[in-house]
């Protein structure tokens, strides 16, 4: 095989520019978001991003426990990203892994610029992300859903945070890398983006890109974020303004 990366059996991109799951190079997977799916959480969201299935619950602003973590100047943000044991093909041990701790941290830091925690000193906003089924790009899906859940909880935000990945597969920059492409491809770049402020809040890169490819990859991912933003918007509109009509 000439095309493809490390895995030589899989055709990642055929001659017609069609990828291994039948998408075009600039086509994201099917995305569906629903806001307010959990009754007991202050805010929640469920996302299906391709084969990713993720539930997010948000609590707060509420009292901080343990108390020594509280900050008298501002509120704090806590985030837990967790993959269920049944979310991947081989059972995953439920204890937080190195990878989950990292993703919790980057999601927290990607949301922080958007959330106006300074309005709630001495409190905490807790975000719980549960991955029910994983399929590559789950951190982007989780970030997009977390942002919807925060808005649903009524926590003041400067902007929504949308997220989408781009990557390099068979020497081509493609939008929204799936699990196979992530494993066998050459690069994967998740991007978190605030669409109205036009600011990037998360960028990671696994792989090697030339400066030109890097630029193109960021642009592609931002294009994907804007698509995700429209779906986030629809999720919130459906919950809050569904049978009112604009007056």
């Amino acid at each position, binding site marked *: 095989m000439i095309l493809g990366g490390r895995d030589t059996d899989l055709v990642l991109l055929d001659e017609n520019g069609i990828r291994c799951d039948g998408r075009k190079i600039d086509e994201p997977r099917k995305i569906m978001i629903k806001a307010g799916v959990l009754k007991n959480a*202050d805010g929640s969201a469920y996302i299906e991003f391709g084969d990713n299935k993720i539930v997010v619950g948000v609590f707060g602003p509420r009292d901080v426990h343990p108390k020594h973590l509280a900050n008298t100047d501002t509120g704090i943000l806590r985030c837990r990203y967790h993959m269920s044991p049944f979310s991947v093909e081989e059972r995953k041990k439920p204890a937080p892994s190195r990878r989950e701790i990292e993703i919790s941290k980057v999601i927290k830091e990607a949301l922080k610029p958007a959330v106006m925690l300074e309005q709630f000193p001495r409190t905490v906003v807790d975000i719980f992300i549960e991955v029910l089924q994983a399929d590559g790009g789950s951190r982007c899906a989780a970030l997009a859903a977390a942002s919807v859940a925060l*808005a649903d909880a009524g926590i003041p*935000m400067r902007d929504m945070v949308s997220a989408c990945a781009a990557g390099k597969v068979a020497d081509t920059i493609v939008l929204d890398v799936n699990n196979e492409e992530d494993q066998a491809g050459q690069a994967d770049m998740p991007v978190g983006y*605030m669409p109205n402020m036009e600011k990037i809040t998360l960028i990671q890169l696994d792989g090697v890109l030339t400066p030109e490819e890097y630029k193109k990859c960021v642009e592609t991912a931002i294009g994907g974020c804007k698509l995700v933003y429209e779906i986030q918007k629809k999720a919130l509109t459906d919950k*809050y303004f569904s049978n*009112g009509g604009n007056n």
Partner: protein
Amino acid sequence: MENTKRKYVIPGDVITSGPYRPEQNVILDGERIIATAIGISEIYDDTVRVISLTGKYIPKINDLVVAKVLSHSSLSWELDINSSYVGFLPAADVFGRDFSAHADELNSKLKKGDLVVARIANSDRSRDPLLTISDRELGKIESGELVEISPSKVPRLIGKRGTMIQTIEMATGAIITIGQNGWIVVSCENSDGLLKAVKAIQMVEEQAHIANLTDRVKSMLESKGE
């Protein structure tokens, strides 16, 4: 309302740009005015604000709230006011100035689980909101039914100049105490009126975003009348 332009917004939406004054739930970003909450944006003359449709209660000075006693120390009570912060009610406020921590038993006045109507005396977010019950119409609630709605829907329940709440009270004969924190106490002499009033409040909560809600509630109350 003549000079208002209303729009549904989500966080990050640009409501308008120009020389407007930002009020609740909006921020100024250069020339642009951006919503920070899900809700309905309103532009009045030179001010812009968003009426939030979700979120917790944020204590404001002079708000009337319905609070539940959580616990007490030897000097004060802690009250749940359905907010991010717990309300703080000093014992001296209830016992008067000659309160003595040795002689007076806080349990004798307010026990855990009791409901009180209180007013927010002070709230600056660097300390827990200070409550007071020393005023007429404030104090312990002896009877009634507690109904919880979203704090963001309280203005809708009151209605323009109190029309909505008057409608419900007139039709059912119930006495309704609305806390700005979304907790409401309904008391009524007859049980039918009580049930109807509770139902009407729940209807407002569910259909808060629908126009002409007062008329809808009125027809609901009347249809079930006979």
